[in-house]
């Protein structure tokens, strides 16, 4: 990896049945890199040269997403996270061959399934107001006319806890309403302004009925809670090899 130009950028992994048509699509970098299929036994990776300076710029993130979006239209793909770069193509190939069984199992599991992301946005001021009106702890702390910064932090902590509970409620409520229509559910990273960031793995055949269900839920929750549905997407949220920290929600 001394020569940055020799690095191989990885977009996704496909199985033997994927046509992997790469015409009319280019990858990250400026000028956009040429894509190629790297065969590794039973599976293959879609790769390209990594640009010397890879940054999470709009252009490159968009290129990454466009490649994966192009590939899921043709078949099942294990999408890589943005910025996955292999030292050299041969070690990448070996790595893929070693892990081929795992990837094949994942591809099989995800076959004909796509991700739909559902975010719920709530005005945070409204959650704070709600907390202040209804949480006795907050009311007590507030009424003690807190003077010191420690008092203010304690008050703020109580508000943050209450707001967190409210957000969790919204997320749980949406999961309750939608999980039955999906194969699997995953929680996304916390997003500014969003009470819930949820991803659902949905069978291709169920995508339109799932979308309708989300829209029904959105209509029920509007206008106080705005529900945003994005997808179908490659199953970004359902390919991670789970680590302990990801499995255990933080307390």
């Amino acid at each position: 990896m001394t020569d940055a130009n020799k690095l191989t950028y990885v977009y996704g992994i496909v199985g033997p049945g994927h046509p992997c048509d790469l015409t009319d699509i280019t990858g990250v970098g400026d000028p956009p890199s040429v894509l190629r299929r790297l065969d590794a036994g039973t599976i293959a990776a879609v790769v390209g040269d990594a640009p010397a300076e890879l940054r999470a710029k709009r252009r490159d993130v968009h290129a990454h997403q466009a490649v994966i979006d192009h590939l899921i239209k043709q078949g099942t793909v294990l999408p890589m996270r943005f910025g996955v770069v292999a030292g050299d193509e041969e070690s990448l190939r070996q790595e893929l061959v070693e892990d081929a069984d795992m990837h094949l199992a994942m591809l099989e599991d995800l076959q004909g399934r796509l991700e739909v992301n559902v975010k719920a946005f709530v005005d945070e001021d409204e959650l704070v107001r709600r907390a202040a009106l209804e949480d006795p702890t907050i009311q007590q702390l507030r009424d003690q006319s807190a003077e010191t910064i420690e008092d203010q932090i304690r008050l703020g902590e109580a508000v943050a806890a209450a707001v967190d509970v409210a957000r969790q409620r919204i997320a749980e409520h949406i999961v309750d309403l939608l999980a039955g229509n999906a194969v699997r559910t995953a929680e996304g990273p916390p997003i500014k302004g969003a009470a819930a960031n949820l991803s659902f793995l949905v069978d291709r055949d169920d995508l339109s009925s799932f979308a309708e269900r989300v829209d029904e839920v959105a209509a029920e929750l509007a206008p106080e809670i705005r529900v945003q549905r994005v997808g179908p997407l490659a199953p970004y949220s359902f390919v991670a090899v789970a680590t302990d920290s990801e499995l255990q929600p933080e307390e």
Partner: protein
Amino acid sequence: MTMVPRQTSTVSRSQRGGTLYDVLDLILDKGLVIDAYIRVSLVGIEILTIDIRVVVASVDTYLRFAEAVNRLDLSSRSQPRTLPEFVGDLEESGASRKTKGALSGAAESVTGAFRRGRERLTERESRSPPESRRSEKGDD
């Protein structure tokens, strides 16, 4: 944080794949990563990621919340609730876990506390703009 959704429609129907911003969190935070691979340019990625992420617990957040609560105009107490019922009942499961009976009493006694607090607030509010105005604009 005053991120107010700009769309007026109840559902944002994104095109296939969505807009980049809508899926940024997934592209940068989810997706397959294998140990043997090298993730480059972490700096740029972190900055982007932090930008869209919530700072969950920090003194800044707490102080901001405290300020927001102190600033609240509690006359809105008489206004109808704007959030769905399931979001509420914070007092039963949230920051303070108490029995329902105890809560009812507490809820009544804090009404008085609120009134007192409001008198205090009114003085402060004459010096600061109403918080509702801030929330109309959004971040970007």
